[in-house]
């Protein structure tokens, strides 16, 4: 019987589905375990803040926040510029150039600002977390920590999580402002709108809650990036290639999770009337 027989192909297909389902179940189990461990450890850290490795928090904030600032500002500025260009082309047909300020303001603050910052943070921080923890796993440093009775979550995950919780909203604020500035540049140069008119329109349509909604999203994205990065690091196989695979996987999974979370939050905001 040929290996390409109909029965073998069907069996392989079923086997692949089974393995994928098994992997998803394992991932879900690992994720649940990690989230449980993070919750337990977070409670401990809240009760004993001095037990948190604040120096590590600073390091990760510098790595994921201040070092990512130039790229975040540039990308969000260009995003605002592109968005305003596209909106201007459509708005011009109806003589509604001033509504470009609305389009840019709402899109950047509620959607694109947090999303673009999350994408950049995934590429920088998520991959770095996965690679770091994966390498430690290869070097059996995690096993050593466990052997000595230290919680790897408290030492390795919580500082990253806290750093992301602080750095992401701050980065998002920078991203929002630079995105709005990009739209402003298009408004006054390409559309010929008076700068004060564009500014007045922007502040007339935007509300503190608009910015707050975007910042809530960025916090959720930060938590996701940190957890997924650390999870993939812990799941890393004990060889160099395994670390590479876990790094790639952390980026892909983070982006996927961010998009899903963004959809859920957007729907939630809509249901709540924001």
């Amino acid at each position, binding site marked *: 019987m040929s290996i390409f027989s109909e029965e073998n192909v069907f069996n392989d297909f079923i086997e692949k589905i089974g393995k994928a389902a098994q992997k998803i179940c394992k991932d879900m189990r690992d994720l649940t375990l990690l989230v449980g461990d993070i919750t337990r450890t977070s409670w401990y850290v809240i009760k004993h803040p001095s037990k948190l490795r604040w*120096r*590590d928090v*600073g*390091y990760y*904030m*510098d*790595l994921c*926040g*201040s070092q990512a*600032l130039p790229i975040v500002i540039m990308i969000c500025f260009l995003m605002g510029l592109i968005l305003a260009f596209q909106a201007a082309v459509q708005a011009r047909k*109806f003589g*509604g150039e001033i509504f470009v300020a609305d389009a840019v303001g709402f899109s950047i603050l509620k959607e694109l600002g947090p999303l673009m910052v999350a994408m950049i943070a995934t590429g920088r921080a998520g991959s770095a977390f996965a690679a770091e923890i994966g390498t430690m796993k290869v070097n059996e440093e995690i096993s050593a920590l466990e052997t000595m009775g230290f919680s790897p979550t408290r030492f390795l995950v919580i500082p990253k999580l806290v750093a992301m919780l*602080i750095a992401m*909203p*701050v*980065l998002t*604020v*920078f991203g*929002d*402002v630079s995105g709005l500035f990009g739209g402003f540049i298009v408004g006054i140069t390409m559309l010929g709108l008076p700068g004060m008119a564009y500014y007045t329109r922007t*502040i*007339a349509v*935007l*509300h*503190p809650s*608009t*910015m707050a909604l975007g*910042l809530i999203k960025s916090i959720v994205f930060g938590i996701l990036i940190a957890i997924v990065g650390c999870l993939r690091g812990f799941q890393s196989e004990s060889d160099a290639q395994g670390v590479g695979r876990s790094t790639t996987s952390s980026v892909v999974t983070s982006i996927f999770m961010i998009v899903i979370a963004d959809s859920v939050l957007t729907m939630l905001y809509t249901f709540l009337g924001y």
Partner: protein
Amino acid sequence: MIEANKFRLGLFVLIGIALFLACLFVFGLSDMFTKKARFVSVFRESVQGLNIGSSVKYKGVPVGTVKKISILVDEKLILVDMDIDLSFFTTGKSKVQGNLLQKFYQFCRSERDKGLRCRLEYAGITGLKFVEIDYFAQPGEPVAIPRPDYLRKDVFYVPSSPGVFSDILKLINVSLERISKIDFENISNQMSSTLGEMKKIVSDPKLKKAIEQLKNMSSNLEKSSESIAKVLTEKRLRQIFNRVEDSLNSLDALAKRVTSQLGQAKLPATSKAFREAAESVNDTKQMLGNTLMKLDQAIDALTELVNYLNDDPSSLLKGKKKPKIDFPEPQKK
């Protein structure tokens, strides 16, 4: 482990927080510190397109926003709450004495009596609406919807005025109602009979002949006008006008001269002399008549003499014969 750059990190966090606070302030947190008045209005028409946050404008100046839209179930009316920013209203004085809000409400109350009303207006082609506050009613005009009794005391009630669109709809409805009352069938029958009559008139040969004549007349008129146009060229017309003008000028000068000469003529004296002269002419004429009569008699006598002499030249020497007396002959028996 590599240490974080504390200065860079601190700068990042501090600038981020400062930007965040600045954004919150610019995007409306500053509104919390501004003094506001609460206006309330009630609309009978649909408020579709009006949302929470829609602009409230006083004579086109955006002075506030819509804060709440609710339905009065019993009256089937729409209640709209609006926040008005007092910083937009100024008296020109440096500082208003006393309670600013009370003074503002006092001002609004007097303006309401002068016809201050609010109306829904469209904000462009998107269908969104805003509330326009302006003098849509005449001073002293009664309000269409009186202030509901259960409104809070600390809010100011601005009566509403029907929007332009609702006015148009009302007008359309009235027009449609009136149109529906028109007896189109009767009109159509009348029109068809009129058209039949008109067709008869049009097909009448007399009318055709009249039209033909009219056509001829018009062609003649055209020819005449062409001839006139040929004769009366612009140059010619100008010459005529110039001559007319010259003539009028001459006439004017003549009239002036006549007037002046009449002035110099001493009319009463002249007329007296003229009358005397006329009388003397009359006497002369009478005398001349007598003379002529005598002359005529003389001529007659002379003619008689000449005839006599011609008949009897010897009479010049013998003298005039005695007239022969013819006696009547006796009648024979």
